[in-house]
């Protein structure tokens, strides 16, 4: 999933985009995404993808390190591209470009903004419970991934994994998952008690980043609006 890699990039990055406010980055992302979705010609999409790639450079994000994540939607769009290719090969490429462009735009947001900040913007329009689940999921993911790694190592060391013995391996994996869930459940019970001691009332207080907008924030919002306008207006070259 590369969550740890992306987390590292978003937290330790030091660029104009990393320093910009979360709301302005979300606005820019949404406007570029809308532009990608409504674009129907190859030139506009190529332009939009180029803008996103330039933003990757501005954000000092190593595209080689995370660019392969955009290949996943590209793979799935190939089948729709084949379908659209009945109207000409350009239609097929448009479908692939839309998918890759949208994925790159989302990647730009999550590699330049820490997840807590992204989720805090969600709290502006989503119920608090959902935002809490987002936070708990993200936190639990790393704990569980670590536990899975340790359990796999001990299973291998104790001879619990035998190649070509499928049923035995399934049983071992199911027991491992069962142990993992029970350990996680007990951990969640401890977590609940700790939260209660710290004054938890059924809502995790996270502050939405609504600090006074900087000049960069205005520029990002303006750039988003220009991109959307540029996509909507007809260009006669």
């Amino acid at each position, binding site marked *: *999933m*590369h*969550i740890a890699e*992306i987390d590292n990039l978003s937290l330790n990055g030091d660029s104009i985009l990393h320093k910009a406010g979360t709301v302005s980055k979300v606005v820019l992302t949404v406007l570029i*995404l809308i532009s*990608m*979705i409504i674009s129907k010609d190859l030139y506009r999409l190529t332009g939009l993808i180029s803008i996103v790639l330039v933003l990757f450079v501005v954000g000092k994000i190593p595209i080689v390190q995370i660019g392969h994540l*955009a290949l*996943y*939607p*590209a*793979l*799935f*769009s*190939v*089948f*729709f591209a*084949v*379908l659209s290719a009945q109207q000409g090969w350009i239609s097929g490429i448009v*479908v692939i470009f*839309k*998918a*890759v462009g*949208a*994925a790159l735009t*989302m*990647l730009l947001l*999550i590699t330049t903004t820490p997840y807590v900040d992204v989720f805090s913007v969600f709290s502006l329009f989503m*119920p608090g*419970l*959902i935002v*809490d*689940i987002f936070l*708990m*999921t*993200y*936190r*639990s*993911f790393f*704990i*569980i*991934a670590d536990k899975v790694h340790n359990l796999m190592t001990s299973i291998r060391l104790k001879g619990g994994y035998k190649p070509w013995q499928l049923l035995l391996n*399934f*049983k071992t994996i*199911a*027991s491992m*998952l*069962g142990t*993992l*869930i*029970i350990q*996680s*459940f007990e*951990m*969640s*019970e401890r977590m*609940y008690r700790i*939260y209660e001691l710290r004054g*938890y009332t*059924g809502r995790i207080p996270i502050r939405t980043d609504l600090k006074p907008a900087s000049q960069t924030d205005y520029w990002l919002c303006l750039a988003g609006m220009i991109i959307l306008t540029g996509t909507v207006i007809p260009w006669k070259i």
Partner: protein
Amino acid sequence: MSHIHIPDGIIPLYIWLPGYIVTFTIIYFVVKRSSNEQIKRVLPFTGIAAALMLIGMSVPLIIIPVHISLAVLTGILIGPKMAFLVVFVVSMILAMFGHGGITIVGLNTLVIGSEVFIGAMLFKGLAKKNLIIGTCVATVIALIVSMSMMVGIIGTYAGFAEVLPHEATEHADEEHLDEEEHDDLHLTEAISEINYLAFSGWVALIIIVVAGIGLETLITVLIIRYFYKVRPDLIETVHGFTM
């Protein structure tokens, strides 16, 4: 197992927007009807269930070209209402990493949410008599319903050929044909191009679907059996029965 992987910009607005509207309506009622005390107790484990689903859905099974979702298991462990919220969160996080588009999150939540709801409700009714058979039947029926929903949604828009397991299919170049004729030929051609182990065509497709459902069911049954041996109180509290 049922998860729509279509990227953004492909499914039209009139299909994905109603998906979001229905999803948010269900979320609104779930949140409104959950008591604060109930939320407080379940929330930490909800995050863990979501993380497990996230791990399950992001790791492809090498032997079969599908991935497990652990959705029914989540529904059984935390109840269908909270599990629906978990499904939304997991779909949204996966979409952020390019695993299905952001526009498809509403539809994905409805498809996997149906799996969660049907699985948990059937488990509640059937597992009282026999835990293993109850879990097995609940999982299989839930998977069949959610897969049918997924096939219906994608098939209506893009043609049923697009629902086939992609890793096992190879497309050939096509000539221009009239639309209806093309759809039939496209589906027949796509199915004939599926290869799995020593099989091809319909046989390979049926083997992939049955193996996928079988594997998800086997994992769910084994985990629930283990869970019931070690901590029966957890399942009994959620579903209100003792064996």
